[in-house]
């Protein structure tokens, strides 16, 4: 390495200085300049006048302590006592270049080690800082997982019994009450399905099949009709025949979440529109809408922009994960106070 070369050159300079000292005392009985096979040297006086030189490269950089030219390494040693009038002693050795490879090896080696150390340290710090956030997310996940297990049986019982009830014999007042129970149960049911999807079903293998979207949309729109009626919403359906190859369970989650959002965040007496064309599905509403800055974050899990409605903020994150899985593009057009339109294209 260059520092080794420097040490060696300094040693040579020391040896040559001693020889110059001797020659100074015996000058001019002795006039033979001291030579050495290991290096070449030159001496210059205070005014940079050459006193004697054996070196090959005479372009000396007097203000640098050590420097390299293309073939040689030079050390410029400044003497405190000017033997033979020498202020600058130049030591020159040939540069074999072997030390450069050594330097590169060391740079790469130590660089990699430092990089790894810093990376590990960074990872440790990141983990340390993110731990509280991760803990709270894990806690929420665990809570949801535990709760959903306990929800299934009573929810199924409620929905099944509502379906079985004979409404013809009921008075109008009770019919309305039953309808409200039905809406509440279906809302909880959608939430339950989202949560079980997130915690239990997400990892299940897909059973892709060709789905008649028109039929599915009709079915799900009808399912949510009681919810829509409660807000006096009307459906505007424009459905052409279209199919898609997808896991039915997953596509149902997408449709359910988009329709239930369109209902939940709609104004009373508003409209929920569903437009189906070949390779495109649009679900729009005339609801509260979102401002543009919120749109990029609306698919994040646990993000909710309106606390007036219930929910965990997981619906759209599920939608996003499913459409991403099937390479379906989702575009959000929203204007505050006017409504939101979700456009799926595949």
């Amino acid at each position, binding site marked *: 390495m260059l520092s080794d070369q420097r040490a060696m050159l300094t040693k040579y300079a020391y040896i040559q200085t001693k020889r110059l000292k001797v020659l*100074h*005392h015996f*000058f*001019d009985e002795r*006039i*033979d*300049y001291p030579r050495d096979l290991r290096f070449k040297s030159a001496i210059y*006086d*205070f*005014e940079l*006048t*050459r*006193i*004697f030189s054996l070196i090959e490269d005479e372009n000396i950089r007097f203000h640098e302590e050590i420097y390299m030219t293309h073939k040689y390494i030079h050390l410029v040693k400044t003497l405190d*006592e*000017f*033997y*033979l*009038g*020498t*202020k600058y002693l130049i030591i020159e050795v040939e540069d074999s270049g072997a030390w450069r490879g050594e330097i590169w090896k060391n740079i790469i080696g130590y660089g990699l080690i430092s990089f790894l150390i810093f990376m590990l340290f960074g990872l440790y710090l990141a983990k340390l800082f993110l731990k509280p956030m991760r803990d709270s997310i894990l806690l929420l996940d665990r809570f949801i997982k535990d709760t959903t297990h306990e929800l299934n049986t009573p929810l199924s019982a409620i929905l099944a019994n509502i379906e079985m009830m004979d409404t013809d014999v009921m008075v109008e007042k009770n019919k309305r009450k039953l309808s409200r129970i039905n809406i509440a149960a279906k809302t909880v049911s959608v939430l339950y399905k989202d949560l079980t999807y997130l915690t239990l079903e997400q990892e299940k293998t897909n059973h892709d099949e060709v789905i008649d979207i028109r039929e599915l949309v009709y079915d799900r729109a009808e399912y949510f009709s009681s919810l829509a009626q409660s807000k006096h919403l009307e459906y505007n359906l424009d459905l052409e025949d279209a199919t898609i190859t997808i896991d039915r369970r997953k596509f149902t989650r997408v449709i359910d979440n988009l329709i239930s959002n369109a209902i939940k965040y709609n104004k009373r007496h508003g409209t929920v529109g569903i437009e189906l064309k070949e390779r495109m599905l649009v679900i729009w509403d005339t609801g509260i809408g979102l401002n543009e800055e919120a749109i990029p974050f609306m698919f994040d899990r646990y993000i909710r922009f309106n606390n007036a409605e219930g929910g965990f903020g997981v619906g759209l994150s599920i939608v996003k994960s499913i459409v991403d899985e099937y390479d379906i593009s989702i575009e959000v057009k929203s204007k505050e106070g006017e409504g939101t339109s979700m456009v799926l294209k595949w």
Partner: protein
Amino acid sequence: MVKPVLLAVLLISGASTQLSSSDAYERYCVECHRELPTSLQRMFMRYLLVYGGEKNVKAGLKHYLKYPLKEISVMSDLFIDNYGIKQKTTLNDTQIDEVLDIYWERFKVIDKLK
């Protein structure tokens, strides 16, 4: 015929200049130093050791010749104790410069090493 005459004149004038210069050095320096144990050569080497370059050496010498002081002498204490400090020079600047030029040329190291 003109050329040999011109050559002779030049040679004579050159030789005479050299003779007068040598004389100046011999006359103003060697005369007194002859009696000292340290040669002018050794003194020159002492100046060289302390001052380094031609201009520095000449400037140092000139200053010492004009204002001799024990404190600025390059000679050893032993030498000064035995032989004292020289008298202040009576030479003018031109004469000093002239003898110093000769002194430098005679004992300089440059071009003498092999």
